[in-house]
């Protein structure tokens, strides 16, 4: 009886881990999509209102999708940090992988230090990369989720068998 329970537990744990991983993938895509939307809003504010960095971040705390992230950024900017410094301090809240953060780096490190043409082109490039990455992930997501679930189920079944 105890072995049966242990086997069921092992299977359940592996299956949950797989489901959790799949959920994380979904969240990551959601995060990228939300960030892409916010960067598009940022581009509009930059292009048509020519707001300062503080003004843009302040506006994104109300209009953006990643409200909590922009609120933290706003706090850091008010403490006197530059956009690059604030982004470095708050980037972990975005729940993005290293690759995506690396793509964001050229924009985040220099936002506010150049003329409007350079800023806009840098922002467009980041948006394109993010959007492409997001689309790729979205395309691959069903397969990846299936793979995750299958692998975790198989691993769970193997563990259960071993226990039994």
């Amino acid at each position: 009886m105890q072995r049966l329970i242990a086997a069921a537990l092992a299977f359940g744990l592996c299956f949950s881990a797989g489901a959790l991983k799949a959920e994380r993938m979904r969240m990551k895509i959601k995060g990228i999509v939300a960030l892409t939307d916010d960067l598009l809003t940022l581009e509009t504010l930059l292009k048509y209102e020519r707001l300062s960095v503080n003004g843009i971040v302040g506006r994104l705390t109300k209009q953006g999708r990643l409200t909590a992230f922009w609120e933290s950024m706003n706090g850091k900017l008010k403490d006197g940090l530059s956009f690059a410094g604030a982004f470095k301090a708050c980037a972990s809240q975005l729940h993005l992988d290293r690759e995506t953060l690396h793509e964001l780096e050229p924009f985040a490190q220099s936002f506010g230090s150049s003329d409007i043409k350079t800023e806009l082109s840098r922002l467009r490039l980041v948006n394109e990369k993010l959007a492409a990455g997001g689309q790729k992930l979205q395309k691959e997501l069903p397969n990846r989720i299936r793979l995750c679930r299958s692998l975790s189920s198989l691993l769970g079944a193997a563990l259960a068998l071993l226990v039994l």
Partner: protein
Amino acid sequence: MAFKTTILTGSAEKSKESGIRQQALGAAEGSALGAVPERIRPLAAAYLKGGVNGLGPVEELRFRVGQPVQIRTANGELLLRDQPPFTENEAKTMLETICDHSVYAREQELTSGFVTMPGGVRVGLSGAPIFEDGRIVRLTSVSGFNIRIPRQVIGCAEPFIRRLTEGGRVRSAVIASPPRVGKTTFLRDCIRCFSDGIGVRAQTVAVADERNELTGSVNGAACLNVGARTDAMIGVPKSVSIPLLVRSMAPDVIVTDELFGEADISAVAEAAKYGVAVLASVHAASASELAAKRWLVDALLGGVLARVFILKRSVNMFDLRSVDLKNGRIAEDGCGSFSRIHAFEAGAERCKG
């Protein structure tokens, strides 16, 4: 009516009667200090607070890549040779700081060669701009900074307001003087007086502030005291802003700095057509220099401008001379209408009388 008397180039203690001035200077000094590299900040703070020994209060802080920092006062200068020279990295940081980490948002100002910071601090810039189609399109490599501390002298124009008005209304006039005499300071205080009704019935004032020197605005809001009934259009050529202000803001008076040529004077003429008085300044040290400006003489003869004054300054006093137009020419003196008001105190006494 009691008039305040303020020493024009005195130390901060000498102008205790002007609370607003103290406040404006405090904000300006804080703002200027924020832009100075950290290693020089304590030293700069000491000079900004107490002035330079024997040379009076600080007027400008100048930074050039590879050179020692220069501190200029009304009476001299000080080179900080014992400090390491200003570096390229510091220049980059300074540019970002004065632009509030938003260089793109200050692009228009940058291409004009200056940025205005909170408190009305004006930072002049030099470097290697990108020049296209006959104009500067970008200024990103900045190597020289001139941080100018605004010296708003509250009350300096009060004794002279009666000279600029007639029957409770402002009359169109031009104030001429050579550079560094205090035209802008004087005009700014005239704006405050007109706007707050000091020495004249309160007027709605519109300021065509092409170089943002009169109002020291940040994000369109004036940082310097220009009164409660003042509207300003910043950073736009006078020929564009004056007609706009006349149509949209219905002012009693338009004040503008540095008239220069036909385009400016036709904008002034446009305002005059609608019965709006214009107070402006021009660069000229004497009547003969004024007479050399044909466009100005034509405007005077055509009745666009009613009067011309020459502003002079000795250490602690302004001297405003009216220059009269006789027989189609400008005469500096020797004619009946020549008038002169000496020190603030003397002017104040006359106004009281």
